[in-house]
C-alpha cells in the first residue's frame, strides 16, 4: 500500500480506499482477514490511531467486520457494496470535473462522447 502524505486526502481515508481497492482486485476475498492495525502502523510508519480510524471507516460502511481477538475480516457482499459506493461517487469525482474542464475548453457533449467511444 502506498500513501501520499502530501495529498489533500487525510491518511485514514487513503487507507480505507486502498483496502477497498484491494478487495475490488480480489487481493482480499470475502471472509478473508485483512491487514491489521499494527501491520498498517508499522509498515506505513503511522500512528496506530490513524490506521484504526481508516479500518473503522470500513467497519462503519459494512465492508469489513471485527472478530474479537482475531482481527478484521471482509464481509459477505463487500465487493458489491464497494462497487455501488464507488459508482455513486463516480459522477462527483470524475464526470462533474470532466464536464467542468470540457466547458473551459469549449468541448461539446458530442465531442466528449466521441472521445470516450475511442474516436478522436
Amino acid at each position, binding site marked *: 500500500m502506498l500513501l501520499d502524505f502530501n495529498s489533500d486526502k487525510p491518511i485514514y481515508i487513503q487507507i480505507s480506499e486502498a483496502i477497498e481497492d484491494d478487495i475490488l482486485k480480489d487481493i482480499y476475498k470475502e471472509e478473508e482477514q485483512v491487514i491489521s492495525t499494527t501491520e498498517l502502523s*508499522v509498515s506505513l*510508519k503511522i*500512528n496506530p490511531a490513524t490506521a484504526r480510524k481508516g479500518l473503522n471507516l470500513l467497519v462503519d460502511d459494512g465492508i469489513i467486520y471485527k472478530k474479537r481477538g482475531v482481527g478484521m475480516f471482509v464481509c459477505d457482499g463487500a465487493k458489491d457494496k464497494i462497487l455501488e459506493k464507488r459508482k455513486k461517487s463516480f459522477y462527483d469525482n470524475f464526470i462533474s470535473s470532466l464536464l467542468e474542464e470540457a466547458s473551459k475548453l469549449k468541448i461539446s457533449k458530442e465531442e466528449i462522447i466521441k472521445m470516450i467511444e475511442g474516436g478522436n
Partner: protein
Amino acid sequence: MNSIEVKNITKYYGNTKALDDVSITIEPNKIYGLLGRNGAGKTTLLNLLTNKIFPNKGNITLDGESIFENDKALNNIFYMMEKNLFPETMKVKEVFKWTKEFYTSFDDDYAKSLSGKFGLNINKKVKGLSTGYTSIFKAILALASNANVLLLDEPVLGLDANHRDLLYKELLTSYNERPKTIIISTHLIEEVSEVLEEAIIIKAGKILAKKSVEELLESAYTVSGEASNVDSYISGKEYIGEETMGRFKSVTVLENSSKQNKELARKLDLEFSNVELQKLFINLTN
C-alpha cells in the same frame, strides 16, 4: 495510568526565561511530538519532567504525585537525553546490565536483538560510538526499558535514512505491542508527523499549541492562485506564510478548513490544498 500534569512551570537560567508559566497535561498511552526551534525550551521541559533540573515556579505530577525526588514515580519514566550521561569507559553490554538493575522490566534479549538489527557492537565502549550509534544505543535502552513513559530528545540525531526508518518502525512495533506514553522532541517534523497523535508546539518558552495532529492540520489551509485574487480572498482573514512567485501567490489561512469558501474560490479561480505540519510549524514559530 501515568498521566503527567505540568502546572505553571517557570524556569530561569540566570536572567533568561527558558520556560514561561507552562501548563500541559500529558495523557497516557499517546505519542506526542514536542516541536520547537532550537532554544525554544524543549529540552528544558524534558529535563524538568525528570528532575534533571528544578523549576523556579510551578510543579509537575505523575498520577497526582509530585515527581520531586520521587524515585517510585520517576522509575516509570525512561529519558533518552541528548547529552550522554553514561560512563564513557563502560561497554554497551555492561550498560545493558546496569539498566536491568534500575529498570527491572528491562528486556535484555530485546536490547540485544535490536543491537543486531541496527548493527550496534555491544562490546564497544560508550566513548567509541559515533554520533549516530550513540543515538541508536540510547534509543535501544529506551525501547528495551519497558518503562511506561518514554521521553526521547532528538532520537534520530546523526542517523542515516535507513536507521531512521528502522527506528520509527521499531518504536511503533513496541508501541503497538504495549501502548505507552511517548514524547518525541525533534525538529525533523516531516518524517515524524504521521507517527504522532498529538503535537505540542513550543516557542520561546511558551506552549503555542497542543492539539492532535489532525486538528492542527485542519486548523489551517493553503489557498493559491493569481496574486490579486488571493489577496481579495484573504482580506479580513488571519493568514501566515505568504509566498509569491511572479503573479502566483500562495498563503496559509488560519481558519478551519471546513470554512473554506469554495464558491468564492471558484469565482476567483483559486485552489485549496492541505497545509503540511512542517510548513505550519515553520510559519507558526517564525
